[in-house]
């Protein structure tokens, strides 16, 4: 009689692997569901204040001046000294000027004007297809 010893070993995990995997996947799915995604960030570009006033612009046109004044409570918009009630009116004014040519624009803002209005003015210039937009420097009027 031959004693055959079955030396194979059924590998039995020391830890309960199944439960661990379940926990990991649960965590994964939990974080996937509770993640809130930020709105996508985009980029708007603009030229900078020219500290030494530019003598000659590329065109012969005098630039469009957009002035924003006021503060967080109320912001006043003027386009070439003409007051605009809303940004939509500003856009209309800019489009009118765009029909003439791609005139350079200078956006000036008072110190307390919230940043988002300056960006919005820049945004409206771009919507009106005006490409030469700069923010004004302190030395300019």
């Amino acid at each position: 009689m031959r004693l055959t010893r079955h030396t194979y070993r059924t590998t039995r995990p020391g830890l309960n692997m199944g439960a661990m995997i379940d926990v990991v996947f649960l965590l994964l799915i939990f974080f996937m569901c509770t993640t809130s995604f930020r709105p996508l960030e985009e980029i708007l570009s603009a030229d900078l204040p020219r500290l030494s006033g530019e003598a000659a612009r590329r065109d012969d046109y005098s630039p469009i001046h957009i002035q924003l004044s006021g503060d967080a409570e109320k912001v006043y918009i003027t386009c070439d000294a003409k007051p605009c009630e809303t940004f939509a009116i500003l856009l209309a004014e800019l489009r009118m000027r765009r029909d003439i040519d791609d005139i350079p624009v200078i956006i000036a803002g008072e110190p307390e004007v919230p940043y988002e209005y300056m960006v919005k003015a820049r945004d409206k210039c771009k919507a009106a297809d005006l490409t030469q937009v700069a923010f004004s420097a302190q030395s300019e009027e």
Partner: protein
Amino acid sequence: MRLRKRIQLHSYQIGIAPLIDVVFLLIIFFMVVSQFTQMEIEALDLPPAAQGERPSDPLKKQIILNVHQEGRIQIDGQDHSVDSFEHLLQSKLQQTTPEDLRILIRADRQTPWRLVRPLMEACARNAIHQIHYAVTEDTD
């Protein structure tokens, strides 16, 4: 003779340990990566704009300025003032030309203009004439 039919049950043995390793690796990878992106980009309420574009040319060296509503300026996780930003800018300009350096201003939408403009003027003093502004999509 008894024919013993043995139905060979194919037991598929998936190695469990590598699976778990992969899952943990993924979790740790995403945790670490999110930490790095956190440093440059602070949580801010950006102004909306309809004409924003997706950033192109990711190979340009860039400086991201995070400006909070109260005027706190953070670059790469560190607090800065306008002067220290200008020093940083000048040191970066010793390595690259002004055209190759992209400046991105991420300012809270309610930041007063007087807190953002000195940063732009500092850039203009150092011959950088184009700045990018981070905006969100305008849903109006």
